[in-house]
Structures are given as C-alpha cells and as structure tokens.
C-alpha cells in the first residue's frame, strides 16, 4: 500500500528522521528481558556498532536490569537469545554488527528458570 496524498511526489520528499546517520556514529539497539515486565518495555540504547557484544552483557545490562532480584541468578550460558526474531548465540568478543545487530534491531533474551518476581513474569 502507499500513501494517499494530494502531492503525487509526496513519497520522494519524505525525510526519514531516524536514519542511522543521524545518531552520531551510534545505532539504536533495543533490548528486552523476557518474563520480567517490572521493566515495562524493551529498552533503547544508542550504541556504537563496533561495541563488543560482551560489553552489552557485562556493562549495559547490569546497570539497567541489576535491581531485579532475578538478575544475580542468571546463568548466562543458558540464556536464549533472538535478534530481530531469529535465534542466535552471541559471540561475546565480536561486535554488535558482526553478531547481526543492526540499526533498530531488537534483542530479546530468555533466562531459563527465571520467570519474574514470585513467578508473575514481572
């Protein structure tokens, strides 16, 4: 489908505000910890594409998810990951880009055995 517009050339004049070039060398990455809806939505981060995946796990995630009582119990070797809907096993020493994480990619992760505060998925 395409836009219904009075200007026939409307589509050519569209300025997309969220092009990766507008993020000063970063790309937007969304991360969501499944079954822990204490965190209301996936979190958005502006991250350099060259950042190692390990830095996301070791630095970013503890800062933002660390206050949940389940966080300390995560067995990281058992975590199941998807990026943009596809299962993957992240290579921690490789960059986000080399792990298939692009601009506005969504990373979801499941932590087996941990399903939120009092098993409420919160």
């Amino acid at each position, binding site marked *: *489908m*395409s*836009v*219904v*517009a*009075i200007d026939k050339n*409307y*589509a050519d004049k*569209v*300025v*997309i*505000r*969220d*092009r990766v070039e*507008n*993020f*000063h060398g*970063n790309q*937007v990455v*969304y991360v*969501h910890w*499944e*079954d822990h*809806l*204490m*965190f*209301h*939505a*996936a*979190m*958005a*981060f*502006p991250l350099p594409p060259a950042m190692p995946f390990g830095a996301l796990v070791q630095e970013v995630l503890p*800062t*933002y998810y660390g*206050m949940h*009582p389940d966080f300390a119990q995560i067995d990281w070797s058992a975590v199941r990951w998807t990026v*943009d809907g596809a299962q993957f096993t992240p290579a921690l020493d490789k960059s986000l880009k080399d792990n298939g994480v*692009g*601009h*506005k*990619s*969504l990373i*979801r992760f499941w932590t087996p055995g941990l*399903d*939120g*505060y*009092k098993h*409420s*998925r*919160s």
Partner: protein
Amino acid sequence: MNAPAKLGLKQRYSLLTHGLDWKPSYQPMDKIYPYAEFEGIKIHDWSKWEDPFRLTMDTYWKFQAEKERKLYAVLDSFSQNNGQMGLSDPKYVNAIKLFLTGITPAEYQAHRGFAHVGRQLPGVGPRVAAQMQSLDELRHAQTQIHTLSHYNKFFDGFHEFTHQHDRVWYLSVPKSFFDDARTSGPFEYFIAIGFAFEYVLTNLLFVPFMSGAAYNGDLATVTFGFSAQSDESRHMTLGIEVIKFLLEQDPGNLPIVQKWVDKWFWRGHRVLGLVAMMMDYMLPKKIMSWREAWEIYFTEAGGSLFQDLARYGLKVPKYADVATAEADHISHQNWLTFYQACHAAGFHTWLPTDEEMGWLSEKYPTTFDKYYRPRIELFREMEKDGKRFYNNALPQLCSVCQIPMVYTEKDDPGTISFRSSEYKGDKYHTCSDGCKDIFDNEPEKYSQAWLPVHQIFQGNCGGATIEEVLKWYKLNLGADNLDQAGSPDQKMWDEWMAARSRVAG
C-alpha cells in the same frame, strides 16, 4: 424586498447557511476546493446532506455567550472560596495536569482541523457545521485553560503546557494522533475526529474525567464539562451524519471509510489508555473501572451503533476484539509505566494502597492478582528499602502511536506484542497489529515520525542527561516530577490540612 419581519426557523436557517453559498463563475470548483477529490471519496449531490442541527451563527453566539457567563460565574466563586481545598486528595490534581497537558492542546488541534475542513469541503451544509465545531473546540481549549489556571496558582506541573505539547515524550501520543488526522485529507479528518473520536469514543474521555471531577470535589472541572456537553452532543450528531452521508453517496466510498474507521478506532483506543489509568489509579475516589466503562460505552453503545450502520455494509472496527481484551490490562500497564518513568513526567505517581488493590482485584478478577499485584508488591519492597524504582533507560516506542511498547499479546499477557515492518531498508517497530496495519498502509507518512526517544539520542532535546532534557521540556526537577510522596504539592497540602485542623481546634 418584502421579507416578512420575522422569518420561520427553517427559512432563517436556510437563508443564513445555504443562502450564503454561491456558484462560482470565473474559477472552476476543483481550484477552489483542491482537497476534495484526492482521497477517492465520491460525492454526487451535496444537497443530500442533512444538517444535523439547525443552528445559525447568531443563535450560536447567543447560546455560547450564555454558557460562558455561567461558567465564569462558577469559576469566580470556586476561586474566591479556595475551591482547591475541597478536593478529595491532592493526588487528584495529577489527573487534571494530565488533562491540561494532554487533552487541552488536542482541543486546539481539533479547532484547527475543523477550520480546515470548514474551508475545504465543497458542500455548504458540512462547511457551516465544521466551522461551528471549529469554534466549539477553540472555546473548549480556552475554557479549560481558564479553569485550570486556578490550580496553576498552587500546584506544580501546569505552567508550560503549550511548550510541552511539542516536546514531552508522552504528550507526543495525543499530539501525533492529531497531527496524523490534520495532515490527512478533509474526509479522513472528518471520519477520524468527527466519527471515530467524537461519536464512537468520546464518552470514554469526557464521562470519566467529568464524573471523576465530580466525585473528587473538583467543581471547576465539572463546570467546564457541563459547558462543553451541549457542544459534544452536536458534534456526535455531526459525526453520525457525515458517515451516513458518505456511505449513501457512492458504494465505492465504503472500503475507504471502513479503512479509516478501523484506523481511527485503533488510534483512539491507544490514546484513551491514558484515561484508563486515570480512572483506575489516579482518582482517589473511583467512579467505575476502565473495564466497566469500556463495556458500557464501547461494547454496548458501540455495538448497537455498528448494528445500525450494518445496513450500509460498515463493519465493527477491525481489532475491536483486541481492544476489548486489552481493557483488562491497559490501565495497569500504563500506570506502571508512568510509575517508573515519572522522573521524566510533569505529574506525580504513586503505588495504590491496600484498599485500592482490593478494589482492583475485584474489578479485574482475571488479571490484577495474577500479573499486576506482584509487580506492585515488588515496587513496594523496593520503596521500603529506600530504592524507589525509576527506570533510567529510555523505552522502545511504537512508530505509530508513539507509546512505549508495553502492551502484551492478546492470549499471553506476559509477553510484549512486538511487531515490525521494513521500509526503505530500515526497521520500524509497532506495538500491535492495529498500529502495524496503519504503518504498512502508509509507511511514507509514519517513517517521518518524531519519536521522542530517538530525538534525545540524536541530541535534539537539550542534551543527553535527564536534567538537560527536563530543562528543555521546561519541567522543574524535584517539583513537577517524581513520586507524590515528598512532592512540594503534597507538602503544601499537608500544611493546609494542618492549618485547617488548628483553626477547627
């Protein structure tokens, strides 16, 4: 001219509306009304438009002036008698902060939209009606501002609503709703605001706010509600007339209109999620739950409306079933979003009391205890440990409704409903099938979205820290934001009450 001294109502109306129209002779119609055709709507005979209310401008001014006199008399007395002290609880004030910042600018947008439609439709009947509605909407914006300016003398968060409307992350929700409607063609605008919003959904906005005000001692807000009410019934009549007219004019209009009804029902439902949390969490004295309101005003009233419209081939909006299922969740999901994000908001939040939790369990027997009570208990634990939870990350937003992507799957309330699309090599995320359909139908439009979170990352919102962004929003850190407990509002209220009980001895 031998006109009789006094004209009959019908004749008067006819002369003062249709009688003022003329047939252009030196410009073609499509040059005068350039917006009339591009949406694909076909109108064969504008004279078949039946004016839903026979109101002429002179009578209109007389009626409105009378209502204004009454309203301002009540407001004067409210202010002279320190009416704010009769509120049920200072928490209530946060509901009207949300109203002034979220709804009032939307009234103004509706005024601009109807002014545009009132200029652009080739039929004189709808043009006159749209002009009157345009004036109504402007009057609503003004009376709301005047009413709530009284609260601005005492409470935080009211002071910069026009500046904030264009900037603050959650205000982008009603703003983008109206921006979308106003940048559509005149017929889509009319269906979006006149029918989907004013007719199908308006009771879910006005009744809760006005009854909520009445229950919580806010006589000022009740009064502007009353003052707007007779206008609203006119708007509803207009909304139903426009849809019948379009469907009767040409069979080819039906699929176009159905698509707009689907789209604007869904967009309206998303915006009304703010009202849902207001009813279930922000009113210290509750009127009814959002679930109950949805059943009365959408399932029952909307059900019979669409039954009536079935003879034109119009169907119940797509995803109405999803919206109904969401009625068990959205108030909780929205409030617990604001709970953790109110360090960046212009009003305060708090956790419900035990008594309120009991009410929520009773009203939401299948969902509250299972999904939301434990979340609230966890937040309580954290508060008790002195670690009141503020989420310092910014959320992923829906590319269409611009709400943080917090809504869950219809059959799985523990899993967020993630949807996405690709357009020109970029990904776009949406919160639901409803929003995804809207995106996919016009990706050119929504790919331009000004998403507040991404704008912060791009450096367009004053800086990267929360302090800098709040400054750019003109929100005062420590006064307008954070929890109700410890806020200057609460402190002032406690002092008033202490003084009052000293006086009472």
